């Protein structure tokens, strides 16, 4: 069964589209859904849980490198929300790494590709809910 990955992406990371992501992870290997946020700090814990509940195997948040957020601390807030969301998932018995935050410089496609491959590989290991 193909894992479904929901990707919340900071708008600064503008190079990524679903077509781009599918060049990294072929369509028959995983279902990728990319949602662009004005900043990773817009990440909401409820969105993260609901994405897993709705069927995503894993969720990935792409934020700018720490110290480089144009809203100063948006990516730091995102990191804390991801940690909290994973704790809530662990309470529910779903493990504590279904949601992963990665900090990637805007336009660094190589780092994005590596991070995405890691997430897809992990999603294949843990499987869907």
């Amino acid at each position, binding site marked *: 069964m193909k894992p479904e990955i929901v990707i919340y992406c900071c708008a600064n990371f503008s190079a990524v589209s679903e077509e781009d992501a599918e060049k990294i992870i072929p369509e028959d290997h995983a279902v990728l859904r990319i949602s662009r946020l004005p900043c990773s700090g817009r990440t*909401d*814990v*409820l969105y993260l*849980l*609901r994405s*897993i*509940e709705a069927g995503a195997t894993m969720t990935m948040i792409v934020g700018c490198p720490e110290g480089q957020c144009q809203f100063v601390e948006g990516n730091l807030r995102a990191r804390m929300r991801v940690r909290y969301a994973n704790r*809530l*998932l662990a*309470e*529910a*018995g*779903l493990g504590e790494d279904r949601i992963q935050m990665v900090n990637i410089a805007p336009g660094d496609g190589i780092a994005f590709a590596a991070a995405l491959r890691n997430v897809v590989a992990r999603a294949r290991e843990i499987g869907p*809910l």
Partner: protein
Amino acid sequence: MIVAERKPFDEIKTALAGCRKVFILGCDTCVSVCMAGGKKEVGLLASQLRMSFKKDGKDIQIDEDTVERQCNREYMELVLSRLQDYDLVVSMACGAGVQLLADLSEPLQILPGVNTRFIGMTPQDGTWEERCRACGNCILGETGGICPVTVCAKGILNGPCGGTDHGKCEVDKDKDCAWTLIYHRLEKMGKLDNIRKDFPPRNHLVQCHPAKQVHEVYKGE
């Protein structure tokens, strides 16, 4: 506002054993502000429970909604008719809201989803501090707006005691001495003479429980 914290997930989940339909009812006033029982927290708990029960292979229907204020009959009447078909309602309100829900929905089974802790304020995002004990004898006007009953570990009205140490409390070195804070606040206000006032013992008669208050307009003839 009233500050609460959500009960541990396992405690809530265990209490739902044997139920087939559960409703989670939030309160969008105090417990929403302290991120314990508002619309978002209701959504998070509902999502957690649905996923957890699904993982356990249990088919339990979890529905959710949030009212403006669970401690107010007018708001509760909007939702009561929807609750009758459920085995249990998890109330995410403070203790007052839980009790009004239980009164109005009798004999429906009610479970509190939060532990109600104190009346407090928000010194910074995500942090709440107790600042009022609802003692019924407010003297904040005399103490520079700092409550000795709440902030002082001993709740003394005529401080400081002998345990103040460079502005810290002997009970906990990380806590400020309330009466030192009061002294400095009064000094800034030009009302340092207030520190000499002798407050009489508190009138505990006004703290009879359960307390009740009726507005004059509603007392009738």
